[in-house]
């Protein structure tokens, strides 16, 4: 049984069919690169996995359970985290609250009033998470909107990793990063694999994809064109699939 299985995923926006029956399998602990031209449907496909978009048809199973009709919250519970291309952070909320958004730990206030957000615990655990990623953030209590692009990226990653996921989807995580920061993201992906966390990495930088991934999947106009083991292919071949020049 594979960790994630997609079969026949279709999705349209109005008259435009973006996904045309996608099949994809990801094993536990595997790192899969998903590449393709702009507009190929990569982000859309990933959002059908995280539950932000519903599918028109097709089936998604995760860890043996069918999750096709679950909402994004239930899928996070199941162990799917996604780092969105636009990061999906709440700019006016502070770093710690962003990391715990949607999963705030609560306690009883004065021992009676229920559902009191345990801010002290949020701050402490968020700080620990940020530290373990080895990044400097001026303070855990400043609004995320005041941080640099790279720092915001770190917050998005921290949010994805705080709840022990089984699968992390990263949509262009390195696009806005400096070289040194890119290296640390790639190192993080390797570290996650050692812990048995599967990753789907979307990136335009084939270099990064080849460095980090076991397998490369090419998406073109809403179809999976090819699915290649890294050690049986090279960048030239992948590029030829992306641009539709393959024999």
């Amino acid at each position, binding site marked *: 049984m594979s960790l994630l299985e997609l079969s026949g995923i279709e999705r349209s926006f109005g008259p435009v069919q973006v996904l045309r029956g996608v099949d994809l399998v990801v094993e536990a602990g595997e790192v899969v690169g998903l590449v393709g031209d702009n507009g190929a449907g990569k982000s859309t496909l990933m959002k059908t996995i*995280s539950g*932000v978009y519903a599918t028109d048809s097709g089936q998604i199973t995760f860890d043996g359970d069918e999750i096709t009709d679950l*909402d*994004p*919250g*239930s*899928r*996070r*519970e199941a162990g799917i985290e*996604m780092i*969105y291309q*636009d990061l*999906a*952070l*709440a*700019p*006016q*909320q502070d770093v710690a*609250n*962003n990391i715990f*958004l*949607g*999963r*705030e730990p*609560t306690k009883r*206030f004065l021992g009676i*009033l229920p*559902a*009191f*957000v345990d*801010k002290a615990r949020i701050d402490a655990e968020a700080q620990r998470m940020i530290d373990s990623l080895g990044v400097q953030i001026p303070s855990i209590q400043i609004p995320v909107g*005041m941080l640099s692009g790279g720092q915001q990226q770190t917050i998005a990653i921290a*949010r994805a990793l705080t709840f022990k996921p089984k699968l992390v989807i990263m949509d262009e995580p390195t696009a806005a990063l400096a070289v040194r920061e890119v290296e640390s993201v790639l190192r993080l992906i390797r570290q996650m694999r050692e812990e048995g966390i599967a990753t789907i990495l979307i990136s335009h930088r084939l270099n990064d994809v080849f460095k980090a991934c076991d397998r490369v999947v090419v998406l073109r106009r809403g179809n999976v064109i090819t699915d290649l083991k890294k050690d049986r292919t090279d960048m030239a071949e992948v590029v030829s699939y992306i641009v539709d020049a393959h024999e």
Partner: protein
Amino acid sequence: MLRFLERTHVRVESLAVLAALAIVMAILSPVTGSGVRVFLTASNLFNIILASATFGILAIGATFVISAAGIDLSLGSVLGLASVAGASLVVTLEFPWYFAIIGSLAAGAAAGAVNGFVVTRGAVPAFIVTLGMLGIARGLALIISDGRGIYGLPAEILFLGQARPWGVPTPVFIFAAVALVSHYVLAHTPFGHHTLALGDNEDSARATGINVNRQRMALYTIAGLMAGIAGLVFTARVNTGDPTAGLNYELLAITAAIIGGTNLFGGRGSILGTMIGALIMGVLQNGLNLMAVQAYYQQMAIGTVLIAAVWLDQIRARGRRAQ
């Protein structure tokens, strides 16, 4: 103190405005026979708080909706509907006294729930939905009451508006209690965190698993409920189910929320700030009353304050981005 203000998102500026305004009003207000400024008499200060309490409760409703990047223009009309609904149950239909409470709160919450339902399911902008409800609720209030005030409420209800336990008017206790609970909900519960996140970035809220529609539905219902509470207090204060109650109060409520530091575009909201905002509006109205400024000019003054507050906020936001 500063840390507390920061944590509760209360702006130092709004406190300063409140103080400055109070000083100006005290200086400009007429002097009583015994040589005291009218503005500063204990009874006048109570009047301010009493008046602020009604639209202050409304402003708390506005705060919930606006911090989630929504808007509710129907609050004043729903207050009127709630006032009439409660009074007619008890006076016209002769139900027991507590039906005035049930009727007002239920009418308010129901109107809010309809707003929320149409906003989330009908994909009609909140601005239009609640503008429509402004007309519907007012019309309904006039129909139920046949266009006339409904007088003669039982003593239990009048207690809620006119009594002064320990010398403090009951509506002030109600306002304080509503504010306390609301502060707890908005600042310290997951519901409150989700509200601010929804106003900040809807995609972020959805992606982290927050049920965005359910959240909105709840927020508009809460706003309606606040209008219901305010309607009840209004009825009790003037001993009338008044179909014209709360006319133009949405202007006061939204202005109070905005000058209290709630972000018109969502993502930031503070109940304590809104209370200060409501007091600012109360002081402004009261001062202008004492100086015998006509009501027409007061409307203009409040409208101007609203626009100026948002304008200043925009300048400030631009300054932050430029940093």
